[in-house]
């Protein structure tokens, strides 16, 4: 029988007790020779097999695993053994112990160290095992190895507290124990791992152990205290630092000890963890009044301590300084300078405390301090400035800067004109989603290139075709349905061109490569009939219909351009350009596609229309002339007869969405609720009943349901038979988002830009879907909201109810970027292009019922003060309007809002004149939580 057969027999008979004698008999060469056969056995036994109908497990039994673990350890080299899964088994059931007396590979030590570094050491390797291996000269105990296992060594079997284990070897407490303070470990978790319950004076864990044995002198208490303080500054994580701080607190250092620890306490102030700083400060406070207090070192650390914006840290620091100042008055000038850092905090209490101490200590003629104060003046609260008035005289710097008016550019001009470039380079770029208008430009350019398209040019478009094929097959994460639609369109175009250009087809047929778009053309969907779960959403229809139209024009060799292609970023059409395009249709006697016409009208920049109107006046009299006069001339009224009802409706909705034109009374669109068309939806924020989920009911096999109330901003969408007519309005499509709006983040801007003059219809749908509750801030919702906000910001259009609502909700959003963006939107439009009063009211309508946490609003307001005088005034208007719609019952955190309001009033030196606000303040006086803030505000009331 060969060695391999013998091994096989051991495995089949599961005689694990015989593997060691067997291997010991072999010479090193024989063991090596076993390797190939052993590998096959390992593969066979490691395979997963189905044991019964539902269970899968590896083929090997426990004895077989033991046999294979020992055999591979002995016969394999390091790399081969590392690739097996037996390093877990090897350390179980004393297997390793059966081997090490007669075989130990020279790579064992290095392998163990590597596992410790990578934190992959098998769980069965415990501290005791490592100590035994070290004693046998088989393992070097490095600090990393020690701290990876020592925390658990305090527990014995069943994780029961067994401190005696730590006394088995003297080196454990004399050396290894101290590594816990020096190296990152999980000692902070070990407290919760024990299964023992407290019985005596000490907790059955490391903290209790240290407390007990420092008490009786077994462990050097002094050194533990020192090491705890040092450990807070060793880049350990927050939890581990917290554990050492807790240990220090548990040991209750006495005053004499604290005195000796003083340098380390001061050093602990450098810790990145505020808990450590706070604790150190607490102890330093005990020492502060002593003569021996190292006041200079405290001053050295002050900048860092003051930089934490934790209120309690700054408060304790001020208390320490007050004490230290009594015994060491020489610290006062320096301390005053450092205390100024407190003025970066937005907390009134912190600022006031610091200001009072500065005022008390300051030398009124200290130029350095005056300079320092003036630097911080812009972030000082009004009350602080009042306290420090005396020290800040003569500094004109407190004056805030003049408002930087954002330059107002016309809707269209040279700054945003879309410049067309070479088709071959542009076509490649279209699928990268670099700009919103690329979608419209590609079909327009392909139409324009119809007469000049050569086989050579088509061949140069190959990279773009190939890119489209990839987009269709594997769209990347930043691609929306519109990108995929564009890809289908472009591939359809390519196929059509190939079918009609023999030379091109011939060239394509020569191409090799299974992934080439031409090879897969048979699987290519036809744009007209392409269906996916999302293509059915009506909101995506207009874009798709435009592409279908472009394809149709190309197939029919129709030279007329699309009307709706934007001429200016982000989605405007110069009225002059539109009029010129339409003139081409008129002279050709062709009726334009009505959806194309509607989008063109909706995108028309209605700001400076004189030149376009002049061109229109030159047209022959007729419906086109009447229609475009109505659209472009602000004063013009619709004049019948109307054969293109849909275009007239669109012109009316674009020009004056809230106006009802009598002339349109007979239009079929009047059966639709007008709000669906002009986006002027009703909305309400408040509690709304809903069926909530309760406990799981085992008997029913379902969850219990009960009625509850949720706080939502709810937009009412009236019922209407949309998309039923022969020629639907663009707005009907935009209402068709389905019950659960399914729009990609990257598509939102392009969809909104179908109606840049008046995006409210889709905007309302976005808000209903993504901002109904203030708790909606998942990645997708936040992305959609941010892109919506960016799109609105890029459009300089008059505000409507929906847009005020949108900005208000965004200002209350959980995401700081959305919030900041909304604030900038407002700030860049004050004073004339946005009503701070209307916006304030809209915010107030949400916050009077605490729709969003008040902190979101107050934090935002604090960042917006003192930017310019004009903005301060606009903030006051906004906040007054916001408060004026509140109710008599104070909402949560109203106090903070009132404080911010008081600050804004103080900055502007204003009084309160709004009667609604005055009434509310009087009503709130009775509430204890806001009483103080209300009384402060009532001092500013001017009775009229």
């Amino acid at each position, binding site marked *: 029988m060969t060695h391999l057969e013998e091994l096989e027999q051991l495995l089949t008979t599961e005689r694990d007790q015989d593997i060691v004698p067997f291997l010991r008999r072999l010479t090193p060469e024989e063991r090596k020779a076993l390797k190939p056969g052993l590998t096959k056995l390992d593969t066979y036994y490691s395979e997963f097999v189905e044991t019964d109908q539902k269970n899968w497990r590896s083929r090997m039994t426990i004895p077989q695993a033991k046999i294979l673990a020992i055999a591979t350890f002995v016969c394999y080299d390091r790399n081969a053994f590392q690739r097996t899964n037996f390093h877990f088994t090897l350390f179980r059931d004393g297997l390793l112990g059966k081997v090490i007396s007669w075989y130990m590979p020279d790579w064992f030590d290095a392998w163990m160290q590597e596992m410790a570094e990578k934190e992959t050491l098998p769980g069965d390797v415990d501290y005791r095992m490592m100590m035994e291996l070290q004693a046998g000269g088989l393992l070097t105990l490095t600090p990393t190895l020690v701290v990876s296992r020592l925390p658990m060594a305090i527990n014995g079997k069943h994780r029961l507290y067994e401190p005696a284990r730590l006394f088995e070897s003297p080196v454990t407490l004399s050396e290894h124990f101290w590594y816990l303070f*020096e190296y990152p470990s999980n000692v902070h978790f070990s407290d919760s791992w024990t299964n023992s319950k407290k019985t005596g004076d000490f907790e059955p864990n490391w903290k209790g152990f240290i407390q007990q044995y420092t008490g009786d002198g077994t462990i050097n208490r002094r050194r533990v205290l020192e090491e705890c303080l040092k450990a807070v500054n060793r880049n350990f994580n927050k939890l581990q630092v917290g554990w050492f701080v807790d240990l220090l607190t548990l040991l209750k250092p006495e005053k004499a000890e604290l005195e000796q620890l003083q*340098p380390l306490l001061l050093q602990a102030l450098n810790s990145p963890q505020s808990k450590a700083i706070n604790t150190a400060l607490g102890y330093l406070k005990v020492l502060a009044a002593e003569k021996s207090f190292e006041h200079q070192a405290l001053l050295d650390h002050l900048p860092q301590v003051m930089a934490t914006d934790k209120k309690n840290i700054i408060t304790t620091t001020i208390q320490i300084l007050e004490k230290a100042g009594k015994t060491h008055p020489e610290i006062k000038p320096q301390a005053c300078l450092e205390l100024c850092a407190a003025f970066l905090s937005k907390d009134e209490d912190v600022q006031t405390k610091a200001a009072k101490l500065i005022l008390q200590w300051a030398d009124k003629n200290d130029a350095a301090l005056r300079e320092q104060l003036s630097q911080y003046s812009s972030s000082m609260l009004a009350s602080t400035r009042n306290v420090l008035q005396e020290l800040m005289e003569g500094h004109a710097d407190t004056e805030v800067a003049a408002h930087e008016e954002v330059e107002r550019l016309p809707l269209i001009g040279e700054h945003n004109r879309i410049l067309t470039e070479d088709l071959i380079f542009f076509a490649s770029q279209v699928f990268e989603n670099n700009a919103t208008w690329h979608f419209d430009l590609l079909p327009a350019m392909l139409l324009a290139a119809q007469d000049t398209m050569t086989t050579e040019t088509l061949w140069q478009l190959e990279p773009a075709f190939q890119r489209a094929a990839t987009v269709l097959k594997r769209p990347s994460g930043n691609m929306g349905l519109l990108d995929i639609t564009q890809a289908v369109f472009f591939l359809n175009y390519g196929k059509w061109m190939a079918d009609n250009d023999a030379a091109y087809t011939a060239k394509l047929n020569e191409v090799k490569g299974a992934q080439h778009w031409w090879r897969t053309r048979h699987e290519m969907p036809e744009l007209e009939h392409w269906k996916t779960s999302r293509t059915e959403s009506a909101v995506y229809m207009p874009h798709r219909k435009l592409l279908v139209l472009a394809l149709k024009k190309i197939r029919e060799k129709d030279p007329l351009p699309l009307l709706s292609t934007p001429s200016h970023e982000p989605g405007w059409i110069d009225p002059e350009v539109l009029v010129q395009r339409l003139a081409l249709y008129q002279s050709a006697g062709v009726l334009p596609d009505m959806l194309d016409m509607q989008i063109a009208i909706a995108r028309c920049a209605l700001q400076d229309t004189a030149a376009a109107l002049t061109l229109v006046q030159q047209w022959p009299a007729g419906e086109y002339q009447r229609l475009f006069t109505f659209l472009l001339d602000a004063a013009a009224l619709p004049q019948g007869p109307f054969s293109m009802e849909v275009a007239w409706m669109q012109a009316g909705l674009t020009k004056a969405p809230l106006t009802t034109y009598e002339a349109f009374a007979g239009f079929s669109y009047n059966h639709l609720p007008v709000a669906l068309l002009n986006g002027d939806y009703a909305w309400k924020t408040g509690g709304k009943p809903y069926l909530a989920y309760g406990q799981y009911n085992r008997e029913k096999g379902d969850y219990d349901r009960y009625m509850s109330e949720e706080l939502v901003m709810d937009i009412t969408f009236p019922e209407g038979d949309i998309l039923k007519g022969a020629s639907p309005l663009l707005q009907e499509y935009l209402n068709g988002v389905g019950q659960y709006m399914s729009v990609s983040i990257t598509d939102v801007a392009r969809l909104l830009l179908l109606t840049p003059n008046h995006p409210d219809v889709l905007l309302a749908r976005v808000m209903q879907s993504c901002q109904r509750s203030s708790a909606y801030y998942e990645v997708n919702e936040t992305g959609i909201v941010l892109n919506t906000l960016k799109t609105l910001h890029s459009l300089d259009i008059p505000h409507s109810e929906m847009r005020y609502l949108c900005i208000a909700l965004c200002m209350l959003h959980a995401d700081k970027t959305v919030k900041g963006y909304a604030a900038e939107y407002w700030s860049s439009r004050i004073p004339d292009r946005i009503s701070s009063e209307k916006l304030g009211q809209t915010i107030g309508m949400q916050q009077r019922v605490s729709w969003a946490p008040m902190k979101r609003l107050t934090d935002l307001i604090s960042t917006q003060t003192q930017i*310019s005088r004009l903005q301060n005034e606009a903030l006051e208007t906004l906040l007054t309007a916001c408060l004026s719609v509140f109710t008599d019952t104070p909402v949560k955190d109203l106090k903070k809002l009132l404080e911010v309001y008081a600050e804004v009033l103080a900055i502007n030196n204003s009084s309160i004149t709004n009667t609604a606000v005055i009434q509310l303040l009087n009503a709130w006086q009775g509430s204890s939580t806001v009483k103080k803030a209300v009384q402060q505000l009532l001092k500013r009331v001017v009775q009229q």
Partner: protein
Amino acid sequence: MIPETNTISYSYPAPSAFIAGGAPRLLLAGYSETEKATGPAFFQGSLEQPYITARCLIALSNVVRSSFTLTPATAAMMKDPIVTAGAEKLRFEGFSQCAGVYARVDVLPGGHSGTFPANGTVNVDFNQPMINALHAVSRNDTLQLMVNAREISVQSQPEESITEKKVPLPVKWIKGLTTVQLFLAASEKVHTLNKVQLRQLFQGIPAGAVKTDYYLTVRGNRPAFSPVKAANAVCVGGIHRLRLLEPLLPLADELQVFVHPDMQSTTWQLYFGNVRFSLSLSREAWRGFSGEGAALDSLIADVPDRLISAMDKYGHVNQEFNATLLAVEEQAGFEEIDQLTTRLAAMGLLGFDLDDNVYFYRRLPFKLNRIMSLNPRMKDAEQLLAEDKVVIISQQQDKVEARVAGSGVTHTVMIDGDLARCTCTWFAKHQGERGPCKHILAVRKKIN
């Protein structure tokens, strides 16, 4: 008792192998991989601002340990900062794990009192004992530093001597080093913020990992980060990476912000007397400096030997030189000098000092001929040429039209002077912002 002195010395089992002996360049003649540099120390002395310097080094080690793209497990594998000593300056530099953040501590003359018997570069581990030692340094301590070819030792308080294994420089770092200096060299100072302003600015960084770009604007006297794009504002992607500077803010006297003209990188330099800390951020958090193609254009042309030998004069570590002056002195075209400096920077041999607007010289342990392997796009371009996949269709003065065979499709490349365009996806996506694509490189190389 608190220990009085504490010696921690870092030594390598083998000496740091300097340079690059591959090609027999005069520039590198003095150093070969076989030379066992057992010579004198590069620096020996004490640091004048021990507390600040120690804090800066901790911040640097935090940069090196940080990662903004990798999983925490991958990020835990530390790498070693590079130390360069010479010309009266000490520089410590390193990258984050993702290579998207570059940090450097400069200890300038006056920031140390010691001697520079020789000069050179080593890379050292900042492991737990070193971190512990640096954290323990207070203002009144003395901090002794010794740098030589094998080790760097820091001594402020007593006991223990720890030996560290040398870890080779990761390729990602070398690639990052090749690009970051070129970005720095093109950067201009746009803002200087005082103590108060810099603190106000950092208060405005949103919590968590920020996905959108932020813009630094100064309104009135107050700097602020805003998510809204504004003209002339400094664009910062992955703004949360700036939090690495936070522990140093209370100590800094001033912050200067330098920006690449195309906003491809921003550099945030904090000043603490004679110590400087600079942090450079790549355009976006997921983009490492290592993957940017900034060096590629200058690698196309070969650099004349005459210039290489001229560079030899500047071949001392930390030796600074001004590219314009070199051009004038050597009567070489600016373009040639540009290519020379790029080439050297692309080898990691040059660093850039923003304050003085000069390159400085350092030696890193890798071979000259590895330069191509560090620039895969250049390598790919060479391969395109080798396989004869580039066809020039027309060439008139500066205007070139070419076809380059790609995978399954043929790309069109048009070059008009400095403007180059290609139909490939890389170009379509980045429009040249991240360096030329391999097709444009191949065409440029062919017509060169």
